[in-house]
């Protein structure tokens, strides 16, 4: 086997493959959540896997068009955007509802002492069922 640095140097002008021997399945908890929600929604029949692949492909192409180097490490960002798009497309939750809820979680986080579990109920403006 050739020395790795010689190999990578020879390939530098073309896009190098982001290599890493061992990597966790999910790098952050949110990646795991986004993945699991998608699998669960597909399982209950909200969309077919072909629809999902198409939607994810669109998100990836859009990100590339906007200059994302697309090294594979932003994959779950594209995944999340595709999931939001799909959920809106299927009439489950639109952008306005999600934005409102994001603001609620942000307030909840700020009202939660560091180290405590962040609960939506911690949002000072929280009302159940809102």
């Amino acid at each position, binding site marked *: 086997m050739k020395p790795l640095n010689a190999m990578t140097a020879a390939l530098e002008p073309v896009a190098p493959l982001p290599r890493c021997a061992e990597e966790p399945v999910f790098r952050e908890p949110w990646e795991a959540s986004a*993945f699991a929600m998608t699998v669960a929604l597909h399982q209950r029949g909200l969309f077919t896997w072909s629809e999902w692949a198409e939607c994810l492909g669109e998100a990836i192409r859009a990100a590339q068009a906007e200059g994302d180097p697309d090294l*594979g490490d932003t994959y779950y960002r594209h995944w999340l955007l595709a999931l939001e798009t799909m*959920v809106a497309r299927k009439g489950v939750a639109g952008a306005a509802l*999600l934005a409102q809820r994001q603001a609620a*979680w942000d307030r909840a*986080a700020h009202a939660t*002492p*560091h180290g405590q579990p962040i609960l939506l109920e911690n949002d000072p403006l929280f009302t159940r069922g809102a």
Partner: protein
Amino acid sequence: MHASDDGPHGHHHEHDHSELSDTALRVRALESVLVEKGYVEPDALDAIIETYETRIGPRNGARVVAKAWADPAFRDGLRRDATAAIASLGFGGRQGEHMVAVENTPEEHNLVVCTLCSCYPWPVLGLPPVWYKSAAYRSRAVIDPRGVLADFGVTLPEGTRLRVWDSTAEIRYLVLPMRPAGTEGWSEEALADLVTRDSMIGTGLARAPGGVAA
């Protein structure tokens, strides 16, 4: 996260509070809405995550390959109907519904990619590595597959054809790597240890006895 030494009196006020990144906020917002509307259940989400973090991975595929090496009848079945053969070992389900096994031979080497997104045979390989999801791999596997193999330290003998298979949402490919020489009579368990994840994608070869790539 924002401990601060407040003012001239020198005593510390507790201003620590939590922060969530924009991405984490988006995911929490989505999840809480989906749970409220009854589309997903938190326990089911946890079970899915646990499955993919701990139970599903390339060790499953390695068992399939090892059995195909050791058992000619299984190998024939795998080539005829990979989904059924793989299911007979207890591996199946999401993203493994329509499996096709492509067999490496001295004449032909197979390489798998998904140019659209990152379709991948989850039941046998788990979730794809970062490089498989990168634009570089998705495009170069098609334009310059030999260059990609070189990047992985794989050089094929002159005259070995290289076939590239583009996965889709419907069809997932599993590469059946060549059995390393010097493993005659080995148990399936011992053979499985020679099967790497990359060898089942086609960016690698099975390990030779003794640890180096064959």
